[in-house]
């Protein structure tokens, strides 16, 4: 009860500040939109897809997962600004739930990610992408869990390193291989065997496959529930680890 109330308070505040400066939502969506408009048209011939729509069914899921991963991983920078302003310390002298300090922020990130995903999906509709709405919502759930995990981890790391200079290279180093090993831009079916083997250990490659199956209308594909389960478990673990950092962080 207290957790829900405290989380709502933090979430409300964060959303209010986000809406005061909504330009960030659009800045975040700018790059994927560019990919959608300027890169995706190359895919039909490159992937040997029968139609433009078929190519988009493969490409858009990857783009959305990419957005969820990166959108989350870089939220730590905002937290470092809050640390520096003393806002976190001010919260930590109150009896507010430490888990709520994290969840309120991460849920804002989830909401802004879903808003961005909707923008991308709507644009893709213009290119003849069609997805059944129920499957689309399941895909959004997967994206939400990914964003929850990556933003929580980013907050936890931010509280540990406490400086942008340390956070930026760290996040980039993690994000690059994760990105390449998840078949986000092109499906890993094109990859040599050893690369596919390595990618199996990347949780995001499972979620990309899951979202692709959903976009293809293939709910019975095992990748769907496997992907969801993997990210759900990781999200819970990430949230608890990061909440611990809020409880013990120094300065």
């Amino acid at each position, binding site marked *: 009860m*207290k957790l829900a109330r*405290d989380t709502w*308070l933090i979430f409300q*505040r964060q959303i*209010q*500040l986000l809406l*005061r*400066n909504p330009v960030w939502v659009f800045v975040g969506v700018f790059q994927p939109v560019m990919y959608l408009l300027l890169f995706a048209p190359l895919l039909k011939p490159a992937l040997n897809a029968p139609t433009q729509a078929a190519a988009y069914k493969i490409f858009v899921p990857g783009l959305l997962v990419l957005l969820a991963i990166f959108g989350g991983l870089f939220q730590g920078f905002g937290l470092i600004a*809050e640390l520096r*302003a*003393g*806002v976190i*310390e*001010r*919260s*930590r*002298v*109150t*009896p*507010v739930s430490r888990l709520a300090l994290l969840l309120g922020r991460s849920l804002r990130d989830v909401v802004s990610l879903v808003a961005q995903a909707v923008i991308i999906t709507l644009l893709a509709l213009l290119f003849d992408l069609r997805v059944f709405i129920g499957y689309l919502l399941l895909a959004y759930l997967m994206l939400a869990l990914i964003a929850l995990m990556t933003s929580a981890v980013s907050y936890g790391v931010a509280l540990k390193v406490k400086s942008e200079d340390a956070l930026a290279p760290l996040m980039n180093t993690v994000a690059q291989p994760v990105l390449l090993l998840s078949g986000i831009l092109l499906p890993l079916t094109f990859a040599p065997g050893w690369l596919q083997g390595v990618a199996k250990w990347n949780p995001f490659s499972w979620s990309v496959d899951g979202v692709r199956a959903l976009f293809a209308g293939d709910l019975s594909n095992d990748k769907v529930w496997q992907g969801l389960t993997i990210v759900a478990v990781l999200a819970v673990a990430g949230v608890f680890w990061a909440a611990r950092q809020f409880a013990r962080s*120094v300065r």
Partner: protein
Amino acid sequence: MIETRGLRKSFRSRAGRETKTVDAVRGVNLEVAEGEIFGFLGPNGAGKTTTLRMLATLIEPDGGEATIAGADLRKDPAEVRRRIGYVAQGGSTWDESTAREELVLHARLYGIGKADAHRRATRALDAFQLSEYADRKCKTYSGGQRRRVEIALGIIHEPKIVFLDEPTTGLDPQSRAHMWDEIRRLRTEGMTVFITTHYLDEADALCDRIAIMDHGEVVAEGTPAELKREISGEVVLVGLDAATTPHAAELLDTEAYVSKLETADEGGLRLYVDEGATAIPQVLRRLDHAGLELRSIELHRPSLDDVFLTKTGRSLRES
């Protein structure tokens, strides 16, 4: 209201490959009474902030115990949090929020209901003369206004004790005077106020009792007057010509109120007395009687800096 026994904290910091241990606080014993303004006076790096952050439950002590407003710091930090307010040294407001939003949110984090939080925010804005700017973003405030918002945040839940870490550092003289009035008002309202400062005049003028801190230890504790009296009493500087000085010294050395007499380097005499105000007329009368001509007479009351100098061998002004 606050009682600490042997509070300790050290930090390990890494500089390159070496790890260095800094003993920031080394066994602090304090007693702060209800309703007083208690001051922690010490130079930068003395360990004031670290002590306050331990008392405010932000960092865990390495050792020692403390009872704060009746709650045990080690066993029940959650209860301590409910009973205290804390205003950090480096600020605590967010540029893009307004004072009212900050106050309402902060009150709500203490579990206060929405309507009540709004009422309290309005009242606090009034009390701290912030109503005019209440709905402007914090980044537009002056240093003094912002500091007042932060103090208002620290007491929005009406704590029994409020910790203010260097509340006037960086403020111009007028804002400082204003802030002193605000802090005195808190005491009038029945709050116990624990401030840290490295300003001698602030400790002297504002605090009922002070503890002088240096290198992580409390080196002296008492009311400013007690501390000053303890070290030397007052000094009367008597300006005389070199020729008459020995004679005057002979005369004054036998006076009962002079506890010690020295010849000053610059000529003349230094008389150590208990109370300068009553000693001066007697000195004047004695010298006049003997027909000795006086060039000047001056009373020197010891300052807290003299106290600091006696206890640490350094001047606080220089450290």
